């Protein structure tokens, strides 16, 4: 599964992996804002940011080609909107949509593939993201795998009784089996949520998660954050000055 690969990547031991989650979150946030608000010389800016991100992937010792392929998951969406803009006669806007979405996806992928989910969530919490939202994210991440497995079991059970998507679509009620699977999956997820809550309460849960270790923000993290903010900001303003 997609998130299992990311999790394996996030367990690496490179210098980039060891950086504090808050430093990486801050750097990613700045880059996302810069790319989202850029207008002048966007192809050049995108190319330079791409090189910076590729360098970070190399530092993290992660496979760049696989990362580029995974970031392409956003392209079907941005290409559709890009095509609409292009057909409307605004080709620069079309290119901007594709460049911005792809670079943003690559930056987020770098963050997620170098920061284990618990550290990432703690980093977000220390930056003021509501704890409730983070709990929802944590549980969704944890049980995505279990629910996906249940869905696969149901799919296998349906296939074992001769169900095929092609066969169903030729029948009179093509969506009924799929709706049934979704309904059962929802009911099972609900029942599992109740069981999990019971298991948590049984071990004294009263609404807040305790932390086993507190992260420390070292001087190396500060240096990284400063460099990761100053470099893309400087690049953007330099390109804007050239454009004028």
């Amino acid at each position, binding site marked *: 599964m997609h998130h299992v690969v990311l999790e394996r990547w996030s367990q690496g031991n490179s210098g980039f992996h060891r950086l504090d989650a808050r430093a990486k979150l801050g750097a990613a946030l700045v880059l996302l804002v810069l790319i989202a608000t850029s207008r002048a010389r966007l192809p050049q800016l995108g190319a330079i940011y791409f090189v910076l991100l590729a360098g970070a992937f190399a530092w993290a010792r992660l496979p760049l080609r696989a990362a580029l392929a995974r970031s392409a998951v956003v392209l079907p969406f941005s290409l559709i909107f890009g095509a609409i803009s292009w057909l409307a006669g605004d080709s620069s806007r079309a290119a901007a949509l594709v460049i911005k979405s792809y670079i943003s996806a690559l930056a987020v992928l770098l963050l997620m593939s170098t920061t284990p989910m618990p550290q990432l969530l703690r980093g977000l919490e220390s930056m003021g993201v509501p704890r409730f939202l983070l709990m929802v994210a944590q549980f969704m991440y*944890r049980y995505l795998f279990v629910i996906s497995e249940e869905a696969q079991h149901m799919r296998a059970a349906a296939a074992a009784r001769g169900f095929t998507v092609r066969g169903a679509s030729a029948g009179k009620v093509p969506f009924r089996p799929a709706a049934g699977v979704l309904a059962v999956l929802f009911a099972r997820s609900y029942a599992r949520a109740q069981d*999990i809550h019971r298991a948590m*309460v049984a071990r004294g849960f009263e609404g807040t998660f*305790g932390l*086993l270790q507190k992260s420390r923000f070292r001087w190396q993290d500060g240096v990284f954050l400063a460099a990761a903010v100053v470099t893309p900001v400087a690049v953007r303003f330099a390109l804007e000055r050239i454009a004028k």
Partner: protein
Amino acid sequence: MTPLITVRDLRYQYDDGTLALRGVDFELFARETVALLGANGSGKTTFVLNLIGLLAGHGHIEVCGMQPGKDTLPGIRRKVGLVFQDSDTQLFMPTVLEDVAFGLLNAGIEPEAARARATEALAHTGMMDAAQKAPYHLSAGQKKRVAIAGILAMQPEILILDEPTTYLDPPGQASLIQLLRRLPQAKILVTHDTGFAQALAERACFFDQGTIVATGPVTEIVRRFAWDRAAVPAEACEEPRP
């Protein structure tokens, strides 16, 4: 000897009207292992959920001198550790170590002490190597051991295991039996596995339609209710295979 758990005339009805418990009387003594046998839906799991206040029925329950109530439930849940049937239900934290330490941190234990106790519990269950792994990367047997470690870390006086052999292969079951034999706590085993029950428990209680209809030595209860494969009619076993 004073029992660790005393239950008198416990009744419980689910919201849909199902009368799951119809007056259960039960006692558990220190260092004793009791198996709860009976058909699906006979009330075994409902009964153990009542013991730690996850369901609230009517009747008298006393656990380690405490009756379930708003003020006593945290104490009762520290004394009684419940291992759920499906380990995936119980293992929800991102790493094994964090999951084992979950209950300790909830009990207000300092992170360093919680880490030490969680590590000790993992070592006790032979799962030290998995401390930094994500729980869903483990096998069913490993998940069960981690779930037990999460309970042992709390240092409970009583262990309740709900269908502990579900999803376990025979080596996994044998390994679990060895582990449980080493633990000194009093235990309640909710199980259909009569071999497992006979390997660990001195006494069995047989549930039928929401009440305990018999209690006694495990082998005697199994024989009395024909609660193993012998329950299948002999002629069914003798039918020729197609």
